[in-house]
């Protein structure tokens, strides 16, 4: 069954959560460990691989990343690094979150790394109350407990409200 994919010009079709289909070259898809395992284990006999958690906009970004890295895997690292930083530049938090989720689901380590790093860089100077909102964390401290933890780490709050 796997041979049918190989015969099919080494391409496979991915389907986003919102129903859009992407035709992807096999060597590009192999950047994803998830897809690689599916291909290896012959379980992708279907012509279309559904990715129900990833929307079209995000999937297009992911595949753009994969294509660049698949085509350039033997070329210069410096070029890839500048591609990576340009790739994430100006990306809003929502897109970043979708990207990190997609990279995590599809097991694309390089993309997961840079997206997580970008998020870390974005939140590092934010007050903890805002970080709480960004990650939908429920504050389970009582006001007294919160004050105590804060007092313990007072030095880290210099310049924060």
């Amino acid at each position, binding site marked *: 069954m796997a041979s049918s994919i190989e015969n099919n010009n080494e391409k496979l079709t991915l389907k986003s959560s919102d129903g859009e289909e992407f035709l992807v070259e096999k060597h590009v898809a192999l950047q994803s460990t998830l897809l690689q395992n599916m291909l290896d284990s012959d379980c992708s006999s279907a012509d279309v691989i559904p990715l129900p958690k990833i929307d079209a906009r995000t999937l297009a970004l992911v595949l753009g990343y994969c294509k660049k890295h698949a085509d350039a895997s033997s070329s210069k690292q410096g070029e890839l690094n500048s591609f990576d930083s340009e790739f994430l530049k100006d990306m809003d*938090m*929502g897109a970043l*979150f*979708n990207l*990190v*989720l997609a990279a*995590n689901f599809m097991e694309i380590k390089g993309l*997961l790394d840079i997206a*997580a*790093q970008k*998020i*870390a860089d974005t*939140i*590092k*100077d934010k*007050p*903890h109350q*805002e*970080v*709480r*909102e*960004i*990650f*939908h*964390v*429920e*504050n*389970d*401290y009582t006001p007294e407990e*919160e004050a105590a*933890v*804060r007092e*313990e*780490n007072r*030095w*880290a*709050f210099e310049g*924060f409200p």
Partner: protein
Amino acid sequence: MGRGLPHLPDEIIFNILSRLRVKPLCRFRSVSKPWLALITDPHFIKSHINHQSPKLMLAHRSYCYGYTLDYQAPRPAKTTFALPYKPVIKILGSHNGILLVRAGRTLRLWNPSIRMFRKFSPPDNPSGSTFYGLGYDSASDDFKVVRAIRPKRKNATSAVHVFSSRLGSWKRIGEFDYQMVQSHDWTSGTVLNGAPHSVVERLGSGMGDVIAPNPAITEIQLPYTPIVTILGSLNGILLIRTGRTLRLWNPSIRMLQIFTPPDFPSGSTIYGLSYDSASDDFKVVMAIRPSRKNAKAVVHVFSARLSSWNRIGDFGYQIHGWTSVTNIDVMENDDPCLSEVIVEKTQPSHYWESGILPYCLEVLRGSLCVFSHREDNVEVLGLKKCGMIESWSRLFVIPYDTGSVQFKRLTPLCSAKDGEVMMEIDRNRFVV
């Protein structure tokens, strides 16, 4: 702000947080109880360490300077930590970014990066001077403080105590004889600092097995005659010289390996003991300091496994300070070719003049670094690839004026240690 953003699973949050520096992490402890638990979890801490660039801590009598060691950065970033208390303080040891300090009669394990410390008192206040060493037992994730007392009278024995930061208590592990404590291994704290835990524990268990009130004396007098010099110790194994014979001795099981130096040179000799975990082999480095200034220094390495010496080269320079060099690297590094490398590395060091420890050696994140004190700065060289002289390269230079005026005074005491950013949070776990 958070509205409309998808929820991230815990594993991704873990991944993101492990990329943050210590300061925001300390702040984000206030986010929620689960976040506090995550940030102080040992598993998280280990992961965090892997994401952070190593830090270098330069200690001065009253300040610590933290430098970020970044191979790419043109200049190291500097953070200055003032000690949390004044004025009399003594730094007794450091390990993985944790300092053991004494102020008056109080001891503290202090983590400058997260500004937290843990206070404790010595087990007693003995007469006679005391020696401290700090060690880390990775198996039980426990910092241990060793205290030995040098007795005033020659035939007195010396009690040795070990403090476990995990248990928060002292334990008396036994009595050592005068000779033992007199030996440089104990008094200098070098070895205590290096492989302190294992050394002490091994010796300790050795002592526990023996019912005699003063087992160290018994053991030490058994195999050899009067004059014994302890040249080095590692993981409970001592390197000893009696006359012209060298011995690797394991006091706990009373086994020893006897061997002789490859030759008997005219100059003075310097020994170092090292362990290669890859081949489970103890290695002894012997260097000969030539008596004439322009003579060659010969260096041999003995492999306990092969039971043979290997001459690794001649070096045409002064090799002052080697004792500590070999001892220091011995402590932390498992690198098989390390002892050889140390020797080789000295080669490009035309500016390392003889005198009071012109440089010192540290292990930063598993790679060997040399601190070379020059006229107006400290140069740090790092070995990128083991066994390759070419791979020695300058990591960064710390100008004397980066710190305070007193920076220069740091030169002689130079206690530079590996301070990885996040170990500190680990510290916090026992601090809190």
